[in-house]
C-alpha cells in the first residue's frame, strides 16, 4: 500500500511539473502518512541527515573549481591545447569540441552547464567554419553528456555516497571507459566530417602544440591535482576538490589575472546555487530512500526483476535498458537515488564488482541525457545552436549508436574498468 502510494504520488507530481526534488519529497511525505508508523518530523531529520556528509562536500567544491577555471581562462587555454592536438583532423573542430566537452563535463557537475560553457565558444567557431549547425549541436551534446564518466564526476560521488563504493576507485574505473568513449566519438565525427568535406582548423605542428602546451601548463595543474591526488590515494575526493579550488583561485587571480576581486562573489554564488540544486534533490530523495527501504521497495523490485530472469547477461541488459530510459526522463541525481538501491540489491546475481556497476550506471544515465526526446544535453545544445530538437535528434543517431556499443563493452568487459580501479587504495 505504502509502495503504491509512493510511486503513484511521485508520477502524479512529476506530471504536474513540480520540481523533481519537491515531487520526490512530496511523494515521500504521502508515503510516511500512509505507512503510519512514524512521526512526520522524520522528514526533516532525513533531509538534514542526507546532506550532512563530508563526502558530499566534494559536490559544491568541484563546482567552485569548475566555475573558477572557466571564468579565469584555465578552460580556454585547455581548449587551445586540444585544438593544437586534434585540430588537424578532418572536422578538427568537432574533435576539439568532443575532447573539451568531455574534459569539462565532470568538473562542474552539471553536464548541461558544462555543455553550455564549451558550446558557447565552439559552436560559433564551427558555424564560422561552415559546419552544419545541427551536426555541431550533435557533437557538443554527445561529448558533453558522456563526459561525466571521466573524473571528477559528481554522479560517481553520489554513487559512492549511496553504496559505500570507494570514490577514488570509481574515478579510476571511469578513466579507460572515458578514453574508449572519447576516441570512438572522435572517429564517428571524423568519418562524418570527411564525407561532408569539413576541413582541418589548423595544420598539425609540433611548435604549435609546444606553444599551447606551455601556455596551458599552469592550467593543466588543476586536473593533475584532482586526478593525481585521488588516484595515488593521497587525498579524498573532497580534499582534492578543495585544493583544486585554491589552485584555480591562485592561477586565475594572481597569475593569469583574468578574475577581478569584485567578480568573485557572483562566480561563487552561481556555483553555490547549481550545487544546491543537486544537493536539494539529495536531501528530498533521502526521505524517499528511507521510507522505500522500510517498505523493502528496492528488494521487492529487484525480486520482481530476478523473477523474470536470473541469467546474468539478460539481467545486465535489462538494467541497462531501465537506466537508459530513466536517464532520458529524470535528472541524473534523482535517477541515481531512486534506482541504485534496487540495482545494488541484485549485485550477487549480476556478478560484477560494485565499482564496475557504478561505472555502468553512470555511463547509462549519461547516455540518457543525450537520448531524444527529453535528453537535457540535447536540449541545451539545440538552444545554443538554434536548431529544432527534431533536426539534432536525427543527427545524434551515429553517436548514440557508437555510445551504445561502448556501453556494452563497459558492461561485459570488466577489466576495462577494474584494471585501473584495483590499483587505487580502497
Amino acid at each position, binding site marked *: 500500500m505504502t509502495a503504491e502510494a509512493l510511486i503513484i504520488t511521485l508520477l502524479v507530481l512529476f506530471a504536474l511539473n*513540480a520540481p523533481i526534488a519537491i515531487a520526490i519529497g512530496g511523494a515521500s511525505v504521502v508515503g510516511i502518512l500512509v505507512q503510519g508508523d512514524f512521526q512526520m518530523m522524520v522528514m526533516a531529520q532525513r533531509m538534514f541527515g542526507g546532506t550532512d556528509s563530508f563526502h558530499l562536500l566534494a559536490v559544491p567544491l568541484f563546482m567552485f573549481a569548475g566555475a573558477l577555471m572557466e571564468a579565469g581562462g584555465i578552460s580556454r587555454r585547455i581548449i587551445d591545447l586540444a585544438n593544437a592536438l586534434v585540430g588537424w583532423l578532418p572536422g578538427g573542430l568537432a574533435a576539439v569540441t568532443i575532447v573539451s566537452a568531455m574534459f569539462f563535463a565532470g568538473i562542474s557537475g552539471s553536464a548541461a552547464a558544462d555543455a553550455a560553457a564549451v558550446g558557447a565558444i565552439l559552436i560559433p567557431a564551427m558555424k564560422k567554419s561552415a559546419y552544419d549547425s545541427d551536426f555541431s549541436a550533435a557533437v557538443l551534446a554527445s561529448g558533453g553528456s558522456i563526459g561525466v564518466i571521466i573524473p571528477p564526476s559528481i554522479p560517481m560521488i553520489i554513487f559512492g555516497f549511496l553504496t559505500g563504493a570507494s570514490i577514488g576507485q570509481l574515478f579510476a574505473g571511469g578513466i579507460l571507459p572515458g578514453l574508449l568513449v572519447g576516441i570512438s566519438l572522435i572517429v564517428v565525427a571524423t568519418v562524418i566530417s570527411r564525407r561532408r568535406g569539413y576541413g582541418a582548423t589548423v595544420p598539425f605542428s609540433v611548435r604549435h602544440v609546444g606553444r599551447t602546451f606551455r601556455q596551458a601548463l599552469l592550467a593543466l595543474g588543476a586536473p593533475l591535482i584532482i586526478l593525481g591526488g585521488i588516484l595515488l590515494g593521497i587525498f579524498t575526493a573532497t580534499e582534492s576538490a578543495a585544493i583544486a579550488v585554491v589552485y584555480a583561485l591562485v592561477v586565475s587571480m594572481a597569475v593569469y589575472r583574468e578574475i577581478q576581486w569584485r567578480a568573485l562573489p557572483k562566480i561563487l554564488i552561481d556555483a553555490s546555487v547549481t550545487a544546491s540544486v543537486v544537493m536539494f534533490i539529495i536531501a528530498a530523495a533521502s526521505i524517499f530512500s528511507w521510507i522505500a527501504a522500510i517498505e523493502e521497495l528496492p528488494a521487492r523490485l529487484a525480486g520482481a526483476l530476478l523473477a523474470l530472469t536470473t541469467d546474468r547477461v539478460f539481467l545486465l541488459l535489462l538494467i541497462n535498458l531501465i537506466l537508459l530510459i530513466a536517464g532520458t526522463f529524470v535528472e541524473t541525481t534523482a535517477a541515481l537515488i531512486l534506482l541504485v538501491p534496487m540495482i545494488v540489491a541484485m549485485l550477487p546475481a549480476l556478478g560484477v564488482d560494485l565499482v564496475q556497476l557504478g561505472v555502468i550506471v553512470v555511463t547509462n544515465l549519461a547516455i540518457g541525457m543525450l537520448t531524444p526526446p527529453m535528453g537535457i544535453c540535447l536540449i541545451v545544445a539545440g538552444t545554443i545552436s538554434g536548431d529544432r530538437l527534431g533536426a539534432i535528434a536525427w543527427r545524434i543517431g551515429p553517436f548514440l549508436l557508437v555510445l551504445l556499443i561502448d556501453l556494452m563493452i563497459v558492461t561485459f568487459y570488466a577489466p576495462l574498468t577494474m584494471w585501473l580501479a584495483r590499483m587505487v587504495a580502497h
Partner: protein
Amino acid sequence: MMAEDNLINGIGRLSRRINAVVEQSLFGLGALMIAIVAAQVFFRYVLNHSLFWSEELARYILVWLTFLGATVAYRRGVHPRIDLFVHRLGPRGARAMRIGAHLVAMAFLGMLVIYGAQFAYFVRLQISPALQIPKWTVMLVLPISGMIILLHALAAVVSELRERTS
C-alpha cells in the same frame, strides 16, 4: 484596489530583498567552506596536525548552503523538472500548470517549516560532538529556508495571477 496593490508589491519587494541577502550569505558560506577544507588539508598533510573541528563545521556549512541555495534556485526557477507536456499546452494551460506546481511546492515547504521547527525543538538539548554548539542552531536552516521558498512561491503565484487580470 490600492491596498491590494500595495500588498502585492510588498510581497514581491520582500522576496527580492530577502533573496539579495541570501545570495550574499551564499558567498560567505562558500568562501568559508573552501577555507575550512583547505585548512584541514594543510594542517593534516603539511603540519601533520589534524584539526578536530574542521570536518564537522564544513558539513554544517554544506547543510546551510544546500538549503539557502535551494531558495535562490527556486526564485531563479532552475530546479529541474520533467517537462513532459507543458510545451503542448496553450498559454493559459501553461500558466495554470505553473501555478499548480507552485502550490504543490508550497504544500511541501509548509510541512518543512512545521516539522523542521519541530525537529529543531526536539534536538534542543543536543550538543554537536566536535564544536560543542547546540544542534538546533544548525537545524534551524530547514524551517528558515522553507519560509523563504514559501515567500518566493507566493510572490510568483501573485504575479502570475496579476498578469491574468491585467
